C-alpha cells in the first residue's frame, strides 16, 4: 500500500523557496584560497594518524631494538676479551671503535639498519600511504571532504618524509642511550685519524642521522607512487619492499656497474664520509642529488597517477 496522497505531499515539499540555491559562492568564513595554515591542519591530522597506528609504533620499536642488540653483542664479545676485527666498508669499520667510545654505536647502528631495516619500515609506511586508505575506503571520504588530491598527496609525502626522519632518530637516540650505558664516552677519532671533541662528535652524529633520513626520501617517493597504483595496502608495501631488495641486489652485481650510480641506494653509505676530517662531500652531494631526482620523478608520477585516477574503492 502506498501513501495517502503522494501528489499533494510531493508538490508541497518541492515548493521550497530556492533563495539560497544559486551557483556556489565561496564557502562562508573562508577567503578565495583557504589559509595555508589549514593545510597544516591536515598535515597534523595525518602525522598523528600515522604515528598513532599500532603498526608504525611496532616498526619504530623494532628499529629501537637494533642498537640494543648490537650494543649488547659488542659488549659480550669484548667481555670475552676478544676484539671484533671486521674492517672495511662504510659500516662495520665503526664497530671496532664502539668499545672505546659509545658514540660510535650511533654510527654502527645506522650503518646496520640503513641497508634493510630502515628502508623496510619506510617502504611499509609509504606503500600504505594511499593504498591503505583506499583499502579501508577512507580515501573516498578524505577526497569528498574535500582534501584535494594534490594536497592530500603532498601531505602524504611530507608525512612519509617525517617518518624517515623519526625512524632514523629513533635508531640514533636508542644507540646513543645504549652506547652511553654500556661504553665510555669522550673525545673520539675520525676515520682520517684526527681527534675531535665529544660535542663535535655529537654534532656529526646528528648530521649523519640527517644524511641517513635524506637517503630514504627517494625510496619514500617510489613507495608513494606504487601506493597510488593499487587499492591494496599490502600489495603496495610488498611491491615497494620487493623493489628495494631487487635494487639492493642489482647494486651489488659488478656486471651492472653502468647503471649502479642511478640506483637509489648506491650512495647510501656515503654518510660515513661525515666522519672524515675534513668531510669528504662528493658522494654525500651525489646522494642528495640522486634522492632529489627520485623524489622529483616518482613524485611527479604519483601526482600524475593520483590526480587522474578513478577512485572506486
Amino acid at each position, binding site marked *: 500500500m*502506498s501513501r495517502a496522497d503522494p501528489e499533494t*505531499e510531493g508538490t508541497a515539499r518541492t515548493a521550497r523557496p*530556492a533563495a539560497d540555491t544559486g551557483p*556556489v559562492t565561496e564557502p562562508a568564513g573562508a577567503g578565495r584560497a*583557504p589559509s595555508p595554515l589549514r593545510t597544516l591542519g591536515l598535515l597534523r591530522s595525518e602525522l598523528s594518524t600515522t604515528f598513532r597506528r599500532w603498526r608504525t609504533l611496532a616498526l619504530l620499536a623494532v628499529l629501537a631494538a637494533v642498537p640494543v642488540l648490537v650494543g649488547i653483542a659488542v659488549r659480550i664479545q669484548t667481555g670475552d676479551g676478544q676484539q671484533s676485527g671486521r674492517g672495511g666498508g662504510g659500516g662495520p669499520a665503526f664497530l671496532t671503535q664502539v668499545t672505546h667510545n659509545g658514540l660510535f654505536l650511533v654510527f654502527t647502528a645506522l650503518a646496520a639498519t640503513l641497508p634493510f631495516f630502515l628502508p623496510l619500515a619506510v617502504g611499509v609506511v609509504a606503500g600504505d600511504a594511499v593504498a591503505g586508505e583506499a583499502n*579501508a575506503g577512507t580515501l573516498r571520504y*578524505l577526497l*569528498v571532504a574535500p582534501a584535494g588530491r594534490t594536497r592530500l598527496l603532498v601531505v602524504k609525502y611530507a608525512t612519509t618524509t617525517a617518518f624517515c626522519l623519526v625512524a632514523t632518530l629513533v635508531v640514533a637516540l636508542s644507540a646513543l642511550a645504549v652506547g652511553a650505558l654500556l661504553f665510555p664516552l669522550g673525545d673520539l677519532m675520525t676515520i682520517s685519524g684526527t681527534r675531535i671533541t665529544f660535542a663535535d662528535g655529537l654534532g656529526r652524529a646528528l648530521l649523519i642521522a640527517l644524511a641517513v633520513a635524506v637517503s630514504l626520501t627517494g625510496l619514500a617517493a617510489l613507495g608513494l607512487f606504487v601506493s597510488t597504483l593499487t587499492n591494496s595496502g599490502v600489495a603496495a608495501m610488498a611491491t615497494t619492499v620487493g623493489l628495494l631488495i631487487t635494487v639492493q641486489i642489482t647494486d651489488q652485481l659488478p656486471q651492472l656497474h653502468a647503471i649502479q650510480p642511478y640506483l637509489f641506494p648506491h650512495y647510501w653509505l656515503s654518510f660515513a664520509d661525515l666522519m672524515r676530517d675534513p668531510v669528504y662531500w662528493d658522494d654525500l652531494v651525489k646522494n642528495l642529488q640522486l634522492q632529489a631526482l627520485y623524489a622529483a620523478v616518482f613524485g611527479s608520477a604519483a601526482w600524475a597517477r593520483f590526480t587522474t585516477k*578513478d577512485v572506486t574503492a
Partner: protein
Amino acid sequence: MDEASAAEPDSARGTGDDVIRTRALTKRYRGGQLAVDGLDLTVPAGSVFGFLGPNGSGKTTTIRMLVGLIEPTSGTARVLGRPMPRSTRAVLPHVGALIEGPALYGFLSGRDNLLRLDAADPTADPRTRRTRAAAALDRVGLTAAAGKKAKAYSLGMKQRLGLAAALLRPRRLLVLDEPTNGLDPQGMREIRTLVRELAGDGTTVFLSSHLLDEIEQVCTHVAVMARGRLVTQGPVGTLAAGLRGRLVVTTPDAADAARVLKEQGVGDVAADGDRVTGDPPDRDLAELNTALVTAGVRVRGFGVERASLEDAFMALTGEGFDVAG
C-alpha cells in the same frame, strides 16, 4: 582546482534551481563495461530525491561521478551549478556524502574519525571543529560512544558515524548512498526522521536506495535506474499515479460480484479466489458498492489499492526488482 571555469555562463534556462544536473553522463570502465549510459538527471533544489535501482544498476557509479571521485567517459555533471569533477574544491564543502557504506579508521575513536575528516576540508574552521563534531555525533545519537574506538562499533553505529561526518557542517546537498544499510528497523526509522528534518531545513537530499518503501516514505522525487540507464524521473506522486489503482472487492460471492461490476461499467474485471479486481470507473465508488449489496453480493472488503512504486518499477522496466546481471 579550476576556479575560472566556474564563471562560465550557464547554458540556458535557470540551471541555478537544480542542485544536480547531468547531461548524457556516461561511464564506461576500462574493462569495457558500460556502468552508466547517457544519464540526464535533474535534481531540483529542496527535494528529497530518491535514486532507485537494483544493485548493479549504476547508482553508485553515478554518485561517484557526482562527487568527483570518478571521471565521466563523456557527458557533463553539474552540482550546485558548477561542473564536476573540475570544481570539487568549491562544491564539495557544501556537500555531505555517505558513499557505499561507512569507512572508518578502526584505531581512532568515533570523535577522532570526525576530527580527521573535518581537518581534511580546508574550508572548515578549526576553531569550531570540536563543537561541530560533538553536535554531529549528538545528531546521530552517538554521543555516548564518541570515545570508543571505531573498530568496536557495530555496523549500525558505523553507518551513523558516516552520517555524522556528512553533517559536520551545514550542507546544501546531502548525498546518501544506501543510508539505512545495516540498521535495525528502529535505526532505519531514526534515519528517515533525520532525513526529513534535514530536508525541512532546506537541504536537498539525494538518497539512493534499493528499498522501494524507503523511497516512498521519505522522497518527494524519484528517479529509477536499470542497467545503467535512467528509466524515469519525476515527483514521486506522478510516478505512481501513472499507474492507475485497482478496485478490489473481497467477497465470498466472487462470480456474482464480477458480473455486477461488469454491468456497472468496470473494465478489466478479474476474479481470483475471493478477490475481484478491476479498473475503477470515473464515478463515485459508493454507488458501485450499493449496486453490489443490492444484488445480494456479500462484501467483506471494498476499496482501491494504489499502485506502489514497486508496481511502477515493474511496469517501467518490465522486470522484477532483482540484481542486474
